[in-house]
């Protein structure tokens, strides 16, 4: 079982029990701020709910990502981007309604560009670019 994930708002890292520590996340404060901004813009522009998970995923990876997706408040309207750096695996899960706005082919395109950035070691840049692609394809909600 994976350690429980921290649910965060932008740069605020929430830990369970122990005080938040900036050093245990893979992102710098500046990167966290940019990801927060990108998330807010994507949510606001499309009316969908985007969320990003970075951490280990259990096998089978796709099922685990879909399980995380179901934990969101409105899975039908949600898009989950799950990144597992250890397994070098990226999963984009779109809900039933979100899938009509973002067809699988476009999700695949965004995944390709994200994977390109990840293989260069740029986690934050890949996530932000992927979010931007997905959000701009989904258009106004």
């Amino acid at each position, binding site marked *: 079982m994976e*350690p429980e*994930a*921290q*649910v*965060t*708002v*932008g740069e*605020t*890292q*929430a830990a*369970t029990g122990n005080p*938040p520590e900036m*050093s*245990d*996340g*893979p*992102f*710098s404060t500046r990167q966290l701020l940019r*990801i*927060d901004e990108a998330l*807010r813009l994507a949510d606001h522009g499309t009316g969908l709910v*985007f*969320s*990003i*998970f*970075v*951490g*280990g995923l259990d096998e089978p*990876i796709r099922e685990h990502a*879909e*399980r*995380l*997706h*179901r*934990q*969101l*408040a*409105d*899975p039908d309207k949600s*898009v989950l981007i799950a990144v597992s750096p*250890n397994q*070098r*695996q*990226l*999963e*984009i899960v*779109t809900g*039933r309604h979100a*899938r009509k706005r*973002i*067809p*699988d082919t476009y*999700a695949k395109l*965004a*995944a*390709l560009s994200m*994977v*390109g950035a990840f*293989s260069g*070691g740029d986690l934050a840049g890949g996530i932000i670019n992927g979010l931007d692609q997905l959000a701009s394809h989904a258009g106004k909600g």
Partner: protein
Amino acid sequence: MSVTDTLLVFVGIPAAAVLVIGGLAYASSRGRGGGGSAKRYRPGRPFDFTPVWFLARPEQLADSAGTALAAGAQAPALSSRKQEQADREAPASGTGGASDRW
């Protein structure tokens, strides 16, 4: 100038300056966690950071605890109850998306 004075001025002062500058550089590189590179993900290296889950609004998480939180407040991790519930539910049909590896 005596020999001692000469040695002090031409050897002692440069040596002290070198030590001070070297010490400062070492301390600053240690202080930022190995020049700021320790926090970075590098492909091929193990990724042992705490898992993070970003949401623009944490109350979007399907957990009653999330709704009581103001923006920016600390959100609790997912409760096991919710995870069990998600496990029990039939796999949501109609989800799409994409997978890729790097």
